[in-house]
């Protein structure tokens, strides 16, 4: 009797474990992404140019583009599967600190471009729904890049931007299809909610950086490799010669941590105030650096982190413009005509915190932000076409 029970138990364990061993898809999206990066065919230079022209709407997909997408069909399938998996662990070894090996970002960009080419081919075939699904897949790749590392988040947002541009290109083709527009809107709202924040990425990035940078050698190496000017390099040399003790580096990292916390708090403010707060912080650090040598590291790192605020605001504004655009298409699909003015309660221009300025044009309509990208002093204008 006991033996029979044992046999049954072993049988059950084997059956359960065998099921887990052959489970597909895996519960980690990164496995399929890495597989896709290895198997994806990179276009040659000539085809790369054609693909770029197609992506920018300057050319329609020709046979070369269709064949390229077809040849990568299985890779696209793997990527689509990966994007639907909730968990994505890229296998980064954070304990390696600054020596940690990062992701092959350029390859991930290529994957996003492949999907963008597929969007165009699908749209050309009239399969708009699948084309829009691909756009959502591109968005999900961006989300999967997470918020643990600032560079990953920046790539994630950039890939999300590509997805939005692809969506805007398809929208005129589905402008009468209420169901597709509504479904797309629901998915995009979902995406915007699950998109990792830049604020968190800055904090997490600094945490990893500081966790490892107590090592004096790494800080010195970082300072030397960061492309400092001759003057800054001399200054760095002098600081490191004068302060050859570990306590100095602890003070430097503590100061840097305090600056990062304050940079993060800037992200809670509206853009114009955030920019002002950022400038004030820059001046404060600049002045502090004259008296406290430990401020040097923060002084070196700050300009790069400061750029992120405008980039993040622009990405969010673009996302909101797409959502507002879909709402306007929906009104048109339901009423048969474009609204005369923008309905209340729609997502806003993140540069000003105000509604977009809406205007009808011969081709469709435009949404213009009321605020400006203060780094470049330019307004944000988005064009939406309507199929005649």
């Amino acid at each position: 009797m006991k033996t029979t029970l044992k046999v049954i138990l072993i049988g059950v364990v084997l059956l359960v474990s065998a099921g887990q061993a052959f489970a597909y898809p895996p519960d980690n999206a990164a496995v399929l992404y890495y597989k896709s990066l290895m198997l994806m065919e990179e276009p040659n230079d000539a085809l790369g140019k054609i693909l770029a022209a197609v992506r920018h709407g300057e050319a329609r997909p020709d046979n070369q583009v269709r064949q390229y997408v077809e040849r990568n069909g299985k890779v696209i399938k793997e990527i689509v599967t990966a994007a639907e998996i909730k968990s994505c662990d890229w296998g980064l070894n954070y304990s390696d600190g600054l020596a940690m090996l990062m992701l092959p970002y350029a390859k991930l960009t290529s994957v996003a471009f492949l999907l963008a080419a597929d969007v165009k081919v699908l749209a050309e075939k009239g399969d708009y729904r699948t084309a829009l699904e691909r756009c959502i897949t591109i968005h999900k790749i961006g989300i999967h890049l997470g918020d643990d590392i600032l560079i990953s988040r920046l790539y994630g947002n950039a890939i999300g931007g590509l997805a939005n541009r692809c969506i805007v290109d398809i929208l005129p083709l589905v402008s009468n299809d209420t169901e597709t527009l509504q479904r797309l809107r629901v998915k995009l709202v979902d995406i915007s909610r699950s998109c990792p924040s830049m604020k968190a990425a800055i904090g997490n990035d600094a945490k990893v950086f500081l966790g490892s940078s107590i090592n004096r050698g790494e800080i010195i190496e970082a300072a030397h490799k960061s492309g400092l000017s001759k003057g800054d390099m001399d200054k760095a040399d002098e600081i490191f010669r004068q302060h050859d003790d570990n306590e100095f580096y602890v003070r430097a990292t503590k100061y840097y941590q305090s600056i990062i916390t304050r940079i993060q708090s800037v992200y809670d403010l509206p853009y114009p105030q955030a920019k002002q707060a950022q400038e004030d912080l820059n001046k404060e650090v600049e002045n502090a650096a004259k008296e406290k040598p430990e401020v040097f590291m923060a002084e070196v790192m700050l300009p790069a982190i400061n750029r992120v605020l405008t980039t993040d605001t622009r990405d969010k504004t673009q996302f909101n413009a797409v959502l507002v655009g879909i709402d306007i298409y929906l009104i048109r699909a339901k009423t048969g005509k474009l609204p005369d003015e923008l309905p209340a309660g729609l997502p806003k221009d993140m540069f000003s915190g105000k509604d977009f300025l809406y205007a009808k044009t011969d081709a469709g309509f435009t949404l213009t932000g009321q605020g400006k990208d203060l780094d470049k002093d330019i307004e944000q204008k988005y064009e939406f076409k309507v199929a005649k």
Partner: protein
Amino acid sequence: MNERNEKWLDEQLKKTIDSGKVEFDSEQWKQKYSAEYQELVSRAERRPDVQRFSWARSLIRAAAVIAIVAFVILLTHRQSDKRVEPAVATFVEDRSPAMMMSRLSLTLAYNRGGLDAVDEQCKKASELLGQKNTNVSIADLLNDKNGDKPERNDL
């Protein structure tokens, strides 16, 4: 005994005895002085050993010289390392693809030139691995919908 030695011995005998034509029978001599002959033969046979030994000794001497030279070079090198090592480590450009893809390397690339620089570095790393890259840059990914091409270092 070889032929030359036999000739020389004939010459000597001729000079000493001067008895006209002298025929030296080496076989007979070997038999007569077999003990001496064996001694001579055994000395001759021992000679290669002696040579081998001296060759080995030369080798040891050479090895010792090489070791000393290597030690001196190593010592000099170490000393010169110590001499050039400043308070701050000197910059050595990352060459290994893995090092180029390290967090430090990419963060610094970002600080230097935004995502453009990161992208460039990723591509260089994959080129070193013999992988092909497209000519499309991150700038294309960041292309605004409103047609503004982002400037370099935009991010």
